[in-house]
């Protein structure tokens, strides 16, 4: 157990290694008494492949672990395979704890952690408790501790702790406390470190296990020393020393003495330091503890140097340098050379000092190289871990990038969809707008066409009107003048006799009749007169004039007001002529003394009723008269109207025409 003090100097690595092995194989030492390889082989050959064969394979592996670790791995592996075959979780966990411990010694911590985590999974899956649980969790913690992941290590140790406390195995529990203490020390949490160390001590005292108590006190003392609680530290270590002497445990005694020396050295009390080391040295030599001897010699030399006992220091260092050199204790060798260099200066030998200094440099380099070599696996592992972490981080970053890209893509997609929707809406609106515009344009075109048609018709109409006006004008101007001339010529003629007078009168009458007829034609052709008002007024004036001249009494009844309506030329002309003919007939043939004329408009039907109080007529009798009626009926038909008559206290004529 000499390594304990080393632990206190170098950190928790070694103590973890040793203690974890205790957890893994609490029941077996490296070489189990009463066992030899031949008997194990025999056992192996005779045993069937059952669960009992697993511990045999493990045991065999353990026989090789120290000297032939590859062979050990082979047997452990077989134990693992068999456990899997047999679905034997406890066996599998034993395989893992042994295999992983070899991996740990080889610095393959990641592989070890992975394997141990599998054991943890198995443990949880099969709800294994007790020792299996402690092995799985504890060894995982140890692997993390090796790797330097103290937080994870603490986590797994703390998970192990309640089970271990429940089991009440003092050795295991003590180991756990010590490991936790060491971890907290490295995590710079003195209170927790001291707390667990104290727990370890309490456990030892409680169980009256002096061995455990000694080790616990050494650990606690060292912690106290490291946290500058010198007196407390010395007290515990001195107690451990007395326990060691009580138990005759040389290893513990040596460790305690060395630690006392170190403590005094730290307290700058070289005299006591020397005393302690001087007591430790023979024990170390007896135990053939090479590193211990080297460390003790160095401690002694420092003490002698500090107490200015240079020649003694020189002689001691000469022996130490030889010893260290011979045993390959490079660090101690180096430290001894450096101290020797200082001693030589103190002795007034600067040349020698330089020689030692040079030696120191070269050994230092060699030591550094060696330590570099020993640490290379660790470094590589750490590098790998960091690389993996870096990869993980990179993956994380990539994932985040991917997420971001996905978000960006989604944003783009949403934007694209929105844009597409907007475009679609825009397109629809544009389409509708253009269609509406098209429709409007078409409507406008149709309107334009209609207007053009209108204009054309209007132009045609205007042309017609123009033509009518021209004809009217010419008739009026030329024929009118001619007829008027004729009329006045006739009037100015002096009738030679009665016969001549009659002819002259006839000429005058004919001219007058022609002029009157022409007036009618001009009226008919005048588009300004194309209104219902005008037609009614014209009919009225002319009929009234004719009846007045004939001395026939007349009464008019005209609807008032008359609707404002246009009546085309043909309708106007025919209606006028029919009424004129009717009035003419009354004047010429009826013998009536009065006439009633009613004019009204219902909807678009113009109704004219002419009722005289004359003698009436027999349509069949008067041939000439019948012709006149036929003519009137034909005119009414031409304008889409009709004519009826009745003999009713005279003659009643009903004219109806659409206007």
């Amino acid at each position: 157990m000499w390594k304990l003090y080393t632990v206190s100097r170098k950190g928790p690595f070694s103590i973890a290694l040793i203690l974890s092995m205790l957890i893994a194989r609490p029941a077996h030492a490296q070489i189990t008494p009463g066992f030899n390889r031949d008997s194990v082989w025999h056992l192996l050959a005779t045993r069937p492949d059952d669960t009992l064969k697993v511990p045999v394979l493990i045991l065999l592996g353990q026989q090789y672990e120290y000297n032939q670790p590859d062979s050990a791995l082979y047997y452990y592996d077989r134990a693992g395979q068999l456990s899997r075959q047999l679905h034997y979780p406890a066996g599998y966990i034993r395989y893992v704890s042994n295999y992983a411990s070899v991996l740990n010694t080889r610095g393959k911590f990641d592989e070890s952690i992975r394997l141990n985590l599998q054991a943890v999974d198995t443990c949880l899956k099969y709800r294994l408790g007790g020792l299996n649980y402690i092995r799985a969790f504890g060894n995982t913690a140890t692997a993390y501790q090796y790797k330097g992941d103290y937080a994870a290590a603490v986590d797994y140790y703390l998970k192990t702790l309640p089970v271990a406390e429940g089991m009440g195995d003092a050795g295991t529990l003590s180991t756990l406390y010590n490991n936790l203490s060491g971890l907290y020390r490295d995590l710079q949490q003195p209170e927790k470190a001291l707390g667990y160390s104290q727990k370890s001590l309490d456990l030892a005292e409680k169980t009256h296990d002096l061995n455990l108590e000694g080790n616990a006190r050494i650990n606690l003392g060292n912690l106290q020393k490291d946290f500058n609680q010198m007196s407390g530290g010395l007290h515990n270590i001195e107690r451990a020393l007395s326990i060691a002497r009580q138990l005759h445990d040389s290893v513990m005694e040596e460790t305690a003495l060395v630690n006392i020396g170190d403590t005094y050295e730290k307290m700058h009390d070289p005299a006591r330091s020397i005393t302690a080391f001087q007591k430790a040295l023979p024990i170390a030599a007896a135990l053939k503890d090479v590193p211990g001897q080297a460390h003790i010699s160095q401690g002694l030399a420092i003490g002698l140097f500090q107490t200015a006992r240079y020649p003694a220091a020189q002689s001691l260092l000469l022996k130490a340098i030889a010893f260290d050199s011979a045993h390959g204790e490079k660090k101690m060798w180096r430290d001894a050379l450096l101290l020797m260099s200082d001693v030589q200066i103190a002795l007034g030998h600067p040349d020698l000092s330089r020689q030692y200094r040079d030696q120191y440099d070269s050994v230092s380099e060699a030591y550094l190289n060696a330590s570099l070599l020993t640490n290379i696996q660790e470094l590589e592992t750490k590098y790998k871990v960091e690389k993996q972490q870096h990869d993980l981080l990179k993956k994380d970053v990539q994932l985040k990038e991917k997420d971001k890209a996905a978000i960006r893509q989604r944003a783009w997609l949403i934007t694209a969809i929105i844009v597409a929707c907007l475009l679609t809406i825009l397109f629809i609106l544009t389409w509708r707008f253009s269609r509406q515009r098209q429709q409007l344009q078409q409507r406008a075109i149709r309107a334009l066409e209609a207007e053009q048609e209108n204009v054309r018709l209007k132009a045609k109409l205007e042309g017609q009107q123009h033509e009518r006006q021209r004809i009217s004008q010419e008739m009026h101007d030329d024929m009118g003048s001619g007829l008027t001339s004729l009329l006045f010529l006739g009037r100015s003629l002096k009738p030679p006799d009665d016969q001549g007078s009659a002819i002259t009168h006839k000429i005058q009458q004919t001219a007058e009749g022609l002029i009157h007829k022409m007036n009618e034609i001009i009226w008919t052709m005048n588009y300004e007169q194309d209104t219902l008002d005008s037609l009614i007024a014209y009919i009225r004036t002319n009929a009234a004039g004719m009846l007045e001249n004939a001395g026939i009494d007349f009464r008019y009844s005209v609807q008032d007001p008359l609707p404002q309506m246009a009546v085309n030329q043909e309708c106007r002309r025919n209606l006028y002529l029919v009424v004129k003919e009717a009035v003419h007939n009354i004047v010429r043939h009826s013998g009536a003394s009065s006439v009633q004329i009613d004019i009204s408009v219902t909807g678009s039907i113009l109704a004219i009723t002419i009722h005289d109080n004359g003698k009436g007529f027999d349509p069949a009798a008067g041939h000439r008269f019948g012709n006149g009626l036929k003519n009137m009926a034909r005119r009414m038909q031409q304008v889409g109207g009709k004519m009826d008559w009745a003999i009713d206290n005279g003659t009643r004529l009903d004219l109806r025409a659409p206007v």
Partner: protein
Amino acid sequence: MDSIRVSIVEDIIEIREGMRFIVNQTPDLTCLSTYGSAEEAMAGLTQDVPDLCIMDIALPGSTGIDCIRRLKASDSPIQFMVFTIYENSDQVFEALAAGASGYLLKDTPPDRIITALRELYAGGSPMSASIARKVVSSFQRPGAATPLSTREQEVLALLAKGFLYKEIAQQLGISTGTVRQHIHHIYDKLHVQNRTEAINKFFGGPGSNTHGL
């Protein structure tokens, strides 16, 4: 009693002479002068002023309407009677607006011509339904009160419907002579309106910032 002096403007010699014959046959009518063109008439009528003037519209050179307008513009006291074949023509209305107070249809028998001349001299005028409508619309101006009296408006409305003077007289309880006098007054107001319109046209009309009258 002084006879009514009548002048005749007519380019066709037969008609002119025939008319002169008719006028001169009547004791209370005298043909003062006859002219074959508007130009001659414009010169002569300012010198030798008749009471009435029978004016043909279609004349060589200036028209009868021009002649009436110019003479009326120089405040001629002559009462013009347009001589026309077709009473409803725009030209007749134009002449009436220019200053004529009546019209005479060319197919009018001689006795009626004389009656018409005497009526005009007595201050009565004829009016057809068609001309009545034109007169009505000519007095209808947005934003301006009509210068016509209610009775004149009534007469116009009945004329426009084709009522005979006799009928209008009966309906309104007046004589046909009064109807004719109303018509005469309507023509006078039409002249005034027409002249105002002409002046307004010349000077830019009311509201314009010109010299004014």
